[in-house]
């Protein structure tokens, strides 16, 4: 019981401090969560327009651990199918523990139009378990994304998650599904160095400003450095490793109050 109370206390603190980042939405593999305009990396439940830029099919899984508490972890999975006409993905995410957990499944479609812009939409079904009623409640909502490439160096991305502010209502409570507006840019200083910047706004929370650099040091190794501000200034770092068709991304961020948040994602890219 004591453990449960501690968990609830920490979970509520986390949700107060990071209200714009819902636990059920996995953190992106881009540094500081700057994925909305990042044309090079794809992540589960991020801007669906980015699916359009995938040239190969791929599968990936990731684990995010918050502050060394297994109960606050999010696990997710993504399978991406690339075709000539349209790219599609199936994503799944799980957060929580036995008495409280949330799940989300998404079916996304994205297409790249003449390499000038890409559009995407994902249909997400969110489900939460309510121990009070010993039942699951769910809701369907879309996620819409757009990315335009003004040149080979500069692109702009926009994404909205749950734009219609769909919520789950039970007899006892209302579970709010986050509604997020994101706008970001990507700029390549050189083929090796990219600068990403992003602003997010969860409709009932504060703004989140994030920026970061990703540097492809070697063909197999990339380094990432960034920072975001959402009430507290949080530094972020990470690296990417490439081995044959495997990609491994490891990111971490140091919250000044709560400690270390770590992320690891593994992807396998199929040949065309």
């Amino acid at each position: 019981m004591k453990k449960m109370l501690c968990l609830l206390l920490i979970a509520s603190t986390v949700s107060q401090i990071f209200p714009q980042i819902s636990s059920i939405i996995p953190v992106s593999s881009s540094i500081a969560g700057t994925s909305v305009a990042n044309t090079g990396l794809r992540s589960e439940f991020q801007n669906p327009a980015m699916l359009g830029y995938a040239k190969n099919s791929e599968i990936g899984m990731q684990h995010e651990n918050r502050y060394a508490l297994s109960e606050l972890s999010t696990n997710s999975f993504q399978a991406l199918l690339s075709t000539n006409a349209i790219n599609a993905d199936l994503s799944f995410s799980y957060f929580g523990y036995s008495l409280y957990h949330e799940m989300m499944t998404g079916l996304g479609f994205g297409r790249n139009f003449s390499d000038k812009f890409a559009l995407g939409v994902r249909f997400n079904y969110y489900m939460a378990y309510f121990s009070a009623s010993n039942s699951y409640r769910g809701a369907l909502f879309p996620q819409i994304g757009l990315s335009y490439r003004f040149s080979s160096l500069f692109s702009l991305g926009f994404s909205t998650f749950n734009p219609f502010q769909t919520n789950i209502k039970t007899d006892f409570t209302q579970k709010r599904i986050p509604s997020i507006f994101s706008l970001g840019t990507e700029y390549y200083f050189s083929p090796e160095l990219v600068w990403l910047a992003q602003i997010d706004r969860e409709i009932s929370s504060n703004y989140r400003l994030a920026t970061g650099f990703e540097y492809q040091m070697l063909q197999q190794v990339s380094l990432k450095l960034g920072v975001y501000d959402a009430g507290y200034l949080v530094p972020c770092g990470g690296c990417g490793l490439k081995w044959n068709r495997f990609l491994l991304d490891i990111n971490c961020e140091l919250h000044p109050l709560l400690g270390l948040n770590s992320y690891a994602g593994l992807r396998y890219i199929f040949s065309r």
Partner: protein
Amino acid sequence: MKRIVVLCCLLFLLINAAYAQDASTTIDQTIADIFEQWSAESEEVPDYQTFYEELEFLAENPINLNHTSREELSKMLFLSDVQVENILAYLYQYGPMENIYELQLIDGLDMTDIRRMLPFVMVKKEKAVSEKIYRYDVLNYGKNELYMMFNRDAETRQGYQASVSSIGDSTNQGKKYVGSPWYHSAKYRFHFKDRILAGMTFEKDAGESFFGSAHKGYDSYSGYLQINRLGIFKTIVLGDFRANFGQGLVMKSDFSMGKSSYVLNVVSRNEGLKKFSSTDEYNFFRGGGATIRLPRNWETSVFYSNKMIDADTVGGVFSSIYKTGYHRTENELNKKHTICQQVAGGNISWRLLWLQTGITFVHTNFDQALVPEKTTYNRFYFSGKAQNTAGWNYRVHWQKLNLFGEAAVTGNFHPALLSGFTLSPLSLVNLVAVYRYYSPEYDTFYALALSETSRTNNESGLYLGAEINPAKKWKISAYADSYRFPWPKYGIDAPSAGKDYLFQTDFSAHRRLSMFWRFRHSNKPANISQENSVMPVVKAVKKNSLRYQLMYSQGNFSFRTAAEGNMVQKGENADYTYGLTAYQDLTYEFSSLPLKLDFRYQFFDAVAYENRLYAYEKDVLYAFSIPMYYGIGSRYYLNLKYELNRQFTLWFKIAQTVYADDREEISSGNEKILGNKITDVKFLLRFNF
């Protein structure tokens, strides 16, 4: 849930649609873009229907640049006086144009201006001759259009709900709407070239009854007939019409040229008598008028109007005119058509190539006296049954300098003056300066000139504007306006002064990509309530706003991304409050189907009313929305245009605003909606025959 699925399926279909192709910008979109820029910094949206109809008519009857006049070119409201003069100077210097590409050689016209001009101009060597009007031609070649529009909110407003307290209480009955929540209007338009124009408009606002106890039919009826170039008559108008003369100090019932990001366009244009075809229920004349061409470049206009207006009459007098046109409750119905207003006026002008001058006179008469309830701010407002106003206007063109102005007096000899110039010292630089003085006692019914407020009185000020093209693809526009109110105004309980600055940079990378940054600073006086003061204290309200907008098109897709933020300080030591909005537009025009879709998602965050934000959104034909946002929430809409065949075109729009600031009701009084959502549905059908 069904709505979400339908919207998402539409988006999904959109993604699956054909690859991008070059899409031509439609006239609708061009007109809407011009209007958006023109009204972007205005809190009062001018009459879009009139604006749209005039430019649409111009697109159907384009100006032949080789045989044009200043008056004709001035109909393109997005061109400045300097640009109009430059076009005329080019034609005078080099003779008729060979083709439309020569527009690029004219000083002061950038690619954006030329692109906007293209739908409204043509180049032809031969001059169109004014033919006789034959009945056969009118009947066989005239164009007819019929419009039917429906609009309503999905949620039920308080005014449509039965009130328990109103049962058996006759005094409370008046607070409830007598009609249904549907808005409906029907319009019929006829035109034969640009010679004969006729039309009728019927309208019922939401809440007004239709074939009920209050009305036997529509609430509002309007009709007009305009004939152009008939013998000595330049224009004849019968039915409902509008009149505009000079700089608007005496007579301007049309839209005004106020402060906007078209910084040079502060000079009033578009003079004369013209039809009224809007659904506005106040701002027009009902009767007849004519403009006659006289020898030696003289021209004269006369008109007479007799119509019933709305007012709350008590004891044979009324305190104010009720202008909204709403007749939804017993109280509003009791004000309907209670006063007879007669207006007679005229103008005589002398027009040469370099000089234009004229005199305007207007007499207004009511059958009952207007007696405003006297307070400090309205001490000098007009009071009585009859009013006379007269003015003299001029315009002189010399080299690269244009001088213009108007001086006017009311019957009791209180003056108003507006005078200014436009100058183009270099081809890349255009300047404008306007001085205005409207005495506190100058209060006339149809004045609409450059002003900080909607009322043309009790103000003096100096407006300076500049437009510079420092490099190819770049344009800088700026204005500075300093003004003073010598007597208290509504909401300002002391003589006061204010400032207003705008700075905008436009970058047009190419035809498909353009963007702008707009900064505006205003320092306006306003009453501010303070805890330690019984009376409100007049203090400066400072507002800084910054807007970035990016327009990008690729094939059949076009995108618009915009973000705007502002910060407001009420009084010197007060804290700043902030507002922010951002939106993403996506438009797709199908190649294989006559279908066009617009989708927007927008969020806004402006907790304080002072930080309210405005953002233009696409709408059905003839409708133009610049909704105001404050609070926290999001808005999205889907706008659809489908051409069923050559005769029928359909527009449909559904828009929803969802507030996320835990509010449990929206609006107040009879307009109140319980909940945090408001949904608006519009439907318009056009039939051409």
